[in-house]
């Protein structure tokens, strides 16, 4: 058990989420008679969910600041429609149309941000209004008729990476390159991390690093193989590449920048953040701005995938994005949630969708099951936090760390909502408080 702890270290939580996702996929693979983990199914899964996952990236930031954005589906539909209209009706170059679409997203974000941060109307109301306004506008400007999308967008919405290079690899070389880059990045960062730890005098056995590298390289290698050996002409989908790039960028923004810290500070305790010099209004504004920008991007990618913009595009996307964020471990009260967690939460939903479909379960029942899964995941989280115990993920990881009472990861990770803190703190007389 200690060995597992050493392998996964303080990132155990996220590794566990990935493991849960892998387990879910494998279970469906077995039940569906080997149809889950196939190149074409995975390719579809990625390009068919990329836009919701992009929304989840923005949504987790909104939820961390303690707000919610109900308008993203309408905004995505509206910007997609406007791109199609400007490109087709006004004969604009598709790139110009896309640029205008993204600007439109920013403008809408500024609109929401203004009402939230300057006027002080809660995000729920602001974006509920936005949801109606922009849904209405889609129907209005399109006159309820679908509009064909610029064909160049198809590459971005559902296209594949180019074929090139030697044929002896027997797979798509772009995908292979991507896989190799991913492995190399992980190996380098793992070794650097280890050398830093060693330099600071921490215990960091080499074998643990090697096992981690082997595991991750194994997973990336297998996925590379699956994505790279589909029908000729297919590869890891382009929207998936865009998603990966966004995940990396937003992971860095939320974890490694002042702005990211400010988001968590505002969500955790707005008054304390303000008295620490955080410009809370600006933080609110930028997060809403960013959300609508990503919604516009998602709408444009979807436009590329569906080849035409319809008046109903984007309906209920906000709900999928919100579900992904909460399955990914975010707290309704704000302050807690990660980009990577939310994307994994979204992938859990996607795998569930795909697996149930492969098993021939109808859309009606799928909807019911997804709802129950969301409820169960969050209920488990809430229950455990009320009991002062780790969240669902912490629960699984708890057993790994059992033999290591000095381990400090667990309490740090699940400090949980304020309620927990109050209840377990000095008042109850637990002598962990060292005074």
């Amino acid at each position, binding site marked *: 058990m200690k060995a597992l702890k050493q392998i996964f270290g303080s990132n155990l939580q996220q590794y566990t989420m990935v493991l849960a996702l892998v387990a879910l996929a494998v279970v469906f693979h077995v039940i569906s008679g080997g149809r889950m983990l196939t190149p074409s199914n995975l390719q579809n899964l990625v390009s068919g969910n990329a836009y919701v996952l992009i929304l989840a990236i923005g949504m987790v930031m909104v939820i961390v600041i303690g707000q919610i954005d109900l308008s993203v589906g309408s905004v995505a539909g509206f910007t997609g429609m406007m791109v199609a209209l400007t490109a087709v009706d006004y004969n604009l170059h598709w790139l110009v149309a896309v640029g205008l679409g993204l600007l439109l997203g920013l403008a809408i974000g500024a609109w929401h941000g203004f009402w939230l941060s300057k006027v002080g109307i809660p995000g729920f109301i602001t974006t509920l209004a936005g949801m109606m306004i922009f849904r209405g506008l889609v129907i209005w400007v399109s006159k309820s008729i679908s509009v064909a999308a610029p064909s160049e967008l198809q590459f971005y919405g559902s296209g594949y990476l180019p074929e090139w290079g030697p044929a002896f690899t027997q797979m798509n070389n772009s995908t292979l390159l991507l896989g190799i880059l991913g492995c190399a990045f992980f190996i380098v960062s793992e070794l650097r991390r280890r050398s830093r730890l060693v330099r600071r005098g921490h215990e960091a056995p080499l074998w643990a690093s090697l096992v981690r590298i082997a595991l991750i390289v194994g997973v990336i290698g297998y996925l590379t193989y699956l994505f790279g050996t589909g029908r000729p002409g297919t590869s890891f989908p382009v929207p998936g590449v865009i998603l990966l790039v966004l995940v990396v960028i937003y992971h860095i923004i939320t974890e490694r*920048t*002042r702005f990211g*810290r400010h988001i968590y500070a505002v969500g955790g305790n707005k008054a*304390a953040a303000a008295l620490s010099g955080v410009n809370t209004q600006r933080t609110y504004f930028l997060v809403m701005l960013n959300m609508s920008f990503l919604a516009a991007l998602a709408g444009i990618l979807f436009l590329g995938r569906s080849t035409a913009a319809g008046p109903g595009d984007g309906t209920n996307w906000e709900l999928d994005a919100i579900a992904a964020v909460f399955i990914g471990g975010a707290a309704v009260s704000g302050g807690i949630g990660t980009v990577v967690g939310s994307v994994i939460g979204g992938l859990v939903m996607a795998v569930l969708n795909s697996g149930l479909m492969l098993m021939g379960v109808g859309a009606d029942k799928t909807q019911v099951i997804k709802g129950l899964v969301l409820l169960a995941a969050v209920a488990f989280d809430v229950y455990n936090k009320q009991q002062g115990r780790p969240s669902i993920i912490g629960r699984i990881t708890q057993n790994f760390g059992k033999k290591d009472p000095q381990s400090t990861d667990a309490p740090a990770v699940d400090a949980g909502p304020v309620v927990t*803190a109050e209840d377990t703190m000095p008042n109850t*007389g*637990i*002598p962990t408080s*060292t*005074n």
Partner: protein
Amino acid sequence: MSNDGHIILEMANITKVFPGVKALDGVTMKVRRGDVHAICGENGAGKSTLMKVLSGVYPHGTYTGDILFEGRTMNFNNIKSSEQEGIVIIHQELALIPELSVTENIFLGEEVTKGGLIDWGEARSRALELLARVGLDINPDTAIKKLGVGQQQLVEIAKALNKNVKLLILDEPTAALNEDDSANLLDLMRGLQGKGITQIMISHKLNEIAAVSDAVTVIRDGRTVETYDVVAGQVDEDRIIRAMVGRSIENRYPDHESNPGEVLFEVENWTVEHPDLPGRLTSKSASFTVRAGEIVGFAGLMGAGRTELARSLFGRSYGIHRGGRMMLEGREITPKNVSQAIDAGLAYVTEDRKVLGLNLLDTIKTTITSANLKNIVKRGLLDLEKETEVANGYRDDLRIKTPSVDVGVATLSGGNQQKVVLAKWMYTQPKVLILDEPTRGIDVGAKYEIYKLIQALADQGKAVIVISSELPEVLGICDRIYTICEGRITGCLAAGEADQETLMRRMTTTVGQPNEAIPA
């Protein structure tokens, strides 16, 4: 006096275990009918846990040991069941609903009904009766949020009286009250005692314990250290302190010789208007100076405008600025928001750690760097390694007791949380530190350490302002003391020349003597 026939409550061998931790370890205590029984102990000693066991918050079966109330063994399953026996607890954080009226709050859960509907007329007249019993002369239709904390506390007691209380438990009843309200409450407690209501009081304030208690039980580390009868008014405070901390604290305030230098921070005619009440000034032409290396106290009753003054100085984070200037090292500074104030070299440690000072979701290290993230940015990204280094440095310097700086601040005790908050502001490299009630809610031992920290900061040449409601504290650690009353600075005294009476006199007069006795 001690006659077992008069014992109303006996708790025998109470042991309560939380996962991995024994919070109570065989606590035994007896309470005589009609007494005010004080329970003392440091934070984390187990006082509140014991009261939660007694009031059924921790139901029977989750602890071991026996509770005998009026001679019968009690097995409470929830608060309701203990209240039916006449045991009512009033928590530190008041449990009133701000939007509802006094009447509605008093009868919440015990509504006066007639034919299934609430009989508001009857409820109101009964509320009036109860309010009279606690000496509160207010309209029972007033919303709770319009009352002061002192009045709210009395409403809580009225609510308890409605439940035919036999044993009233008051958990830190005066923690949020000013001196007047506290005195009032202690009077009321004596009055209730006269009517035969037994009371258990948990308090940190030894002078209050001394004033009203008939018996004292001291708890340390989940065990009863001692329990003995006292005569109200003649309590040996030092004996309690010795028992609480398990060692004798010779001096509650560390010895310190300040070496004030030049005037570092100067405020002239600072005037601030209330943010919501136009025309009402929370600071009226306040002028004061602080020298480098000097610890200056701001003494005033609650509501005198001390916090408002401090926050208005700190980047105008309170009220509307209506005039006055601020000089740092001889140059005028005009910070218009908190971030500019931090950059200028000001730091403000709030009086309310949990509500305004901390993000309880944060870890120790993220809290410490949170007001000066700029300092750990390398090439546009946060240098997380440096963050850990910085936090570890403060952990060692301030002796923050924690296995790791990755631990959540919510898991720390009050004293350690306060050290983390101090570390956070020390990391902003301030020239002027304003500490608002820096030792509120932390126990004697930790207070001593905080005082030493404050003195160390002054010795580094910083200008330190300490706002405190506890006069002994102000007298004990400050070099010079300004008194504030209703937003006006009403006096300035060298600590050596001041005593509690002179301070109190100036804290309660609005006639200013601003030029008096300012030492050279």
